């Protein structure tokens, strides 16, 4: 019996480990956001209305009439947001502006990310000169170049120069009420929607589980949504 006992213990622990992993996995997966087609095939599940609309107008790429809208709450310094950036760009190219609209909203995680707020301000200041998305793309694409910098502001200013912005106006706008207000309003919307971290993405008002953000899974979800809307 003594010779067999250790193997029994090992087998019990292995079984328990697999069971715990299985339970954890199941408890961690939030319900998939796959739309439930209405009998008429027309209606999507109505998103929960929230009283906070966020900054208006939102920074959006794609037509306002596009059947699928992805609303991202992001932090420029967050590595997974940096990883999501090329995924969304790829999907925007694949589906085109008539079918997919992408909205970016600020949710800078201060104090965890020391440069996130400055990055958000830089993008909004560029936005006041009509170059929000250009700055947004530059900031994300060069995340590794500035995330560990002592002072990221000169780096963002170099992007402003690269984009041909009026630097005097850009510097003034960085600390302006208009810029601060947009970031604040996006944050209010995030909290109203229960956003806990970044990136958090909503598809037509419903939260997309984080594990569905890889490009192949997100593509399936968008196709499902398009199928439901019949476009």
């Amino acid at each position, binding site marked *: 019996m003594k010779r067999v006992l250790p193997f029994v213990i090992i087998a019990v622990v292995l079984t328990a*480990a697999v069971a715990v992993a299985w339970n954890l996995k199941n408890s961690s997966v939030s319900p998939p956001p796959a739309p439930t087609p209405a009998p008429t095939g027309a209606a999507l599940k109505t998103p929960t209305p929230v009283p906070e609309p966020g900054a208006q107008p939102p920074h959006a790429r794609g037509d306002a009439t596009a059947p699928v809208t992805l609303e991202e709450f992001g932090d420029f310094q967050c*590595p997974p947001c940096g990883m999501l950036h090329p995924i969304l760009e790829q999907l925007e190219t694949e589906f085109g502006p008539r079918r997919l609209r992408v909205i970016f909203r600020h949710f800078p995680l201060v104090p965890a990310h020391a440069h996130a707020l400055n990055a958000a301000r830089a993008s909004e200041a560029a936005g006041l000169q009509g170059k929000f998305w250009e700055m947004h793309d530059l900031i994300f694409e060069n995340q590794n170049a500035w995330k560990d910098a002592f002072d990221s502001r000169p780096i963002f200013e170099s992007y402003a120069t690269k984009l041909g912005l009026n630097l005097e106006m850009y510097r003034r706008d960085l600390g302006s009420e208009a810029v601060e207000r947009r970031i604040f309003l996006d944050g209010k919307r995030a909290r109203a929607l229960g956003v806990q971290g970044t990136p958090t993405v909503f598809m037509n008002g419903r939260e997309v589980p984080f594990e569905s953000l890889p490009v192949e899974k997100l593509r399936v979800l968008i196709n499902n949504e398009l199928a439901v809307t019949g476009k």
Partner: protein
Amino acid sequence: MEVVTGQEETDKPNSGRRAAILYGLAAFVSLIGLADAIYLTVEHLSGRSVRCTIVKGCSEVLSSPYATLNGIPLAGVGAVAYFTVFSAATLAAFGYKGAGKFAAFVAGFMFLFTIWLVYLQAFVIKAFCQFCLLSALVTTVMTVLIVLARRDKVGAVS
């Protein structure tokens, strides 16, 4: 001819028993590491810990390129390693020959790897994940226990 005193004779079975207890403790400690590694693996695969939150730490560490080995979560590799040490230490506690040596080999490798991972968190990623730090602590304690058990075992045999 070697003279064995009465005191030394009584120490041999004591050493063997102490080694068995130390191996048992190492097996128990490795279970904590196993639970931690399973949790981290599931969190990693589900993406919950990878998402950035207001508290800096796990998201930076788990979304870094060092969190995976050819697409396999490092925490998953850790879970397999902990289970291996648990099995070997359990067998060693029951007196299976060679099991202690194998446990020491795997634990030693894990300890060296842990030093590398703590270095990465401190100086490369510049963020600490509390679950990774718990794993480092568990690996250290586990390795010390196994080394002590090996010393007792050798003491008992010589």
